[in-house]
C-alpha cells in the first residue's frame, strides 16, 4: 500500500484524513485511487496536482512508478516563472 500524504486544506474533503492508503504502482494509479476513496478530491485533482516522491517533484507523469517504501506527498500543481 502507498501512503499518500495530503496538504492541510484538503482534509476538509477527506473527513480529516491526512494520509490516505492506496493500492497503486504508479502515480496515475494513486490519483485514480484517491478519487475513488475520496470523490471530493476530484475537482482539485482535475484542476491539477503534482507529487513529491522522496522529495523529488513530479508533475503530469501518471506512469511514474511508486513503491510502498517511498514517501509520497500530493502537492499543488507546480508552475514557475
Amino acid at each position, binding site marked *: 500500500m502507498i501512503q499518500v*500524504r495530503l*496538504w*492541510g*486544506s*484538503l482534509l*476538509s*474533503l477527506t473527513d480529516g484524513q491526512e494520509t490516505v492508503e492506496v493500492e497503486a504502482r504508479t502515480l496515475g494509479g494513486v490519483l485514480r485511487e484517491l478519487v475513488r476513496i475520496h470523490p*471530493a478530491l476530484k*475537482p*482539485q485533482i482535475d*484542476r491539477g496536482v*503534482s507529487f*513529491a516522491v*522522496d*522529495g*523529488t*517533484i*513530479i*508533475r*503530469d*507523469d501518471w*506512469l*511514474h512508478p511508486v513503491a510502498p517504501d517511498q*514517501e509520497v*506527498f500530493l*502537492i*499543488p*500543481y*507546480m*508552475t*514557475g*516563472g
Partner: protein
Amino acid sequence: MAFERYQKTDFKVVGTRPRRPDGIDKVTGKALYGADATAPGMLVGRILRSPHAHARILRLDTSRAERLSGVKAIVTHADFADPGDDFTRDIRDNLLARDKVLYDGHGVVAVAALDAETAAAALKLIEVEYAPLPHVTDVDKAMRPGAPVVQEGRSNETVPAGLSQNVTGFWEFGHGDAEAGFAKADRIVERSFRTEATHQGYIEPHACLASMGSDGRAELWCCTQGQFMVRTVCAAILGIEASHLRVTASEIGGGFGGKTTVFIEPIALALSRKSGKPVKMVMKRAEVFRATGPTCSSSIDVKIGMTRDGRITAGTANLRYQGGAFPCETASFGAQAAFAAYDMPAVRTRAWNVLTNRPKEAAYRAPGAPMAVYAVESVVDELAKTLDLDPLEVRLTNAARKGTKSSYGPTFPDIGLVATLEAAKAHPHYTAPLGPNQARGLSCGFWFNFGGNTCVSLNVNSDGTIGVTEGNPDIGGSRASISMMAAEELGVPLDKVRTVITDTNSLGYNDVTDGSRVTFAVGLATIEAARAAKKKMCRRVSRLWEIDEEAVTWKDGCVVPAGPNAGDHPPMSLAEIAAIADNTGGPIAGHHETNADGAGVSFGVHICDVEVDSETGAVKVVRYTVFQDAGKAVHPDYVEGQMQGGAAQGIGWALNEEYVYGEDGRLQNPGFLDYRVPVASDLPPIETVILEIANPGHPYGVRGVGETPIVPPLAALSNAVSQAVGVRMTHLPMSPPRVLAAFPSGSAARTAR
C-alpha cells in the same frame, strides 16, 4: 521516467565560459524579436480597453468603425470558442471582456486596419456604454464579506465559509503543534507585512504576427516563453485543431514568467481569420502595464517563536494574495516556500487567493515565494536582533538539511542550504566594515524547480557538425548551455554544435520555459539524444569492422575497440563516421522525449549593504553578494547573470517598483517613468558565489538557477534598511516616502553593526 544518476565530473566543455552564441545577432540588430516580423498585405491590430475598474457592458456598437475606410476586421469576445476548461476560459475572458470589464485596461474589442492611424481612428468610433460597478483593488478589503464581487461562483471547494466570493482558493500546509512550540519559545515576534504588485518589467512588449488562410490553417510568430503553450491555448480559444496552427517563437526580450501565457495572440489570429490578411499586433508599454501580468500583491501575518539560543520553536504565516480578476494559485507557492529554509518542529501556513479589480496575475520568477520569504525572513532577522544573536548563525542553527521534514511536507533529500550559508559566513562581505548611515541585511531564499515535458532532436551532419533542435525559447542562455552539453557528450569542439529553437510542427510538446527547468530538462534530453546518436555510431562502426557491437565503445569523440579481443582498429572519429553516413545506413540522429524529474530544489543566500539618506529617505545599495547552490554551472557567466539579474529585480521590488491605484481603481503609473525599475546607476557590482553541489538527478549534476535569486533580495534589503532606520520595515517597496515616514520622529539614520 528516471534517468541515470549524476556521474560525470571530468568536464572539458561544461564549466567553461565561451562567447555567447546569440551575442552578435543581438548587438547588431540582426536578431528578430516579436515586433520584427512583417508580411505582405499585413494589417495592424489594436485593442480598445476599459477605462473603468469594474463595469457592466450595456451596449457595444462597432458599426461606425466598421464603415471606416481601411478597417478590415473587428472582433469581440463573441468571436472566440469555448475552450471547455476554466483555466483556458479565464485566459480567453482576459483577452476581451465577456459581459463586464473586470479592471482598468481590460480588453473590450479589437480592430484590424490597413495602418496604425486607421486602427486608432476606428477605436475612437466604437461606442461602448458601461454601467460602472463598485470596485476593489486592495486584497484585505476584497476578502471582507460585502466587498464588491469581481466574479461570482469562482471559489473552490476548500474555501471556508463566511468569506467574500472573491476568495477563490485556500491552502494550508505544515506539521507539528504550533501552540506547543510557541509555549517553548523565549521570544515571540508577530508582525504583518504588505508587498505591492510588481511587473516582470521585460523590455520587449508583447508582439505577434498572425496569418490564417481560408483553409483554416494558421501561422503565428510571437515573443513567448512557450510556443507549444501558445499553440494549445490559441487552438482552444479559436476552436481549431492544433495541427492547423504552427507557432514560431521569436527571439525574446525578457519574460521572467510574464510570457508564459497569452494576451494578444488569439486576438490577432481571430482578426486574421476574419479579414483574410496577416495581422500584426504590438502592445504599447501602457498596455503592457495595464493588461499583462504583474505579480500578486500580498498581505501577510507571520509569527515565530525562538529560544534564547536561537532555535525556532514554531512558526505560522497567514498569506493573503491578490492576483487580479481571475483565480490563480500563486498563494499556495508562497505558503509552501515561506518557511522552506528551516528545520522546524512546528509550522503552519495558510494562504488565500483573492479576486480584485486588477489585471490577471502572471507568473514572475519563483511565483509567490519572494513576498512570503520576505515576511518570514524579516521576523527571523528581528528575533535574532532582539535576542542579540548573529542573524547568519541563527539561520545556520535552524537550516533545513538532508532528512529535514520540509515546511510544505516532503522530506528533503540532499540540499545545499547549509553549504550556502557557510559560504556566506566565510565571505569577506559578511564582516566588512560599514560606513556612516550604512547597514547590512541578509536573507535565505528557496525555490522548488522542476523538469517537465521536453523533446529534443540531435542531428549529426555529414561534415561532422551537430545540429540540436529544441523547443524552449532561450531566456537565460540555454542555447549556449545545450550546445555545451551536446559537445561534452559527443566529445566534439563546441563550435561544431549549433542549437536552434524550433516551431511547434517540428518537435513534440515542450512545456514553457519556466520553473528554472530548461538547462536542467532540455540539457538532460540533449545528453540522452547524444547518447542515442553515439549508440548508433558505435553500431555502424562495429559493423564496418565486422565485430560485435559490444566490442566497441565511445571515447573522446571516437569509436574505439572496447578491448584487446576486438582487434586492432584505429579510433574512428565522429567526423569520419559522419562523412560515410550515406554508406552506412543513412542520416545519423538522436532523439529523446521525456517528462523529466529530478530537478532538485534550490537555495540561495543574499547579503546586502545599504546606505540610507535620512533627509530624503533614499536607499542606496552599496554592496551586494549572492550565494547560490547552482549544481554544476554549465556556463558560469550565464549562471552569474541569473544570480545578478534576480538580485537586480528583487532590489527593484524592494525599493521602488509598485502598481499604484487611484481611488477610481485605475492604474496611476503605467509607464517606466512612474514605475521605476533599477537602472545600472542604481546598482553596485553584484558579486556572485556559485556553489557547485551536484544535483544527483542530472547526469552532469545540473540544477535550475533562474528563479531562486529573486527570492532573498526583498528581505535582505528590508533587514538592512530596518537596521539603518531603527524601525522594522513592513511594507514594500521601501520607496523614499515610506522610508522617510518610518524614521522615528527627529532621529537620524544610525550606523549599524
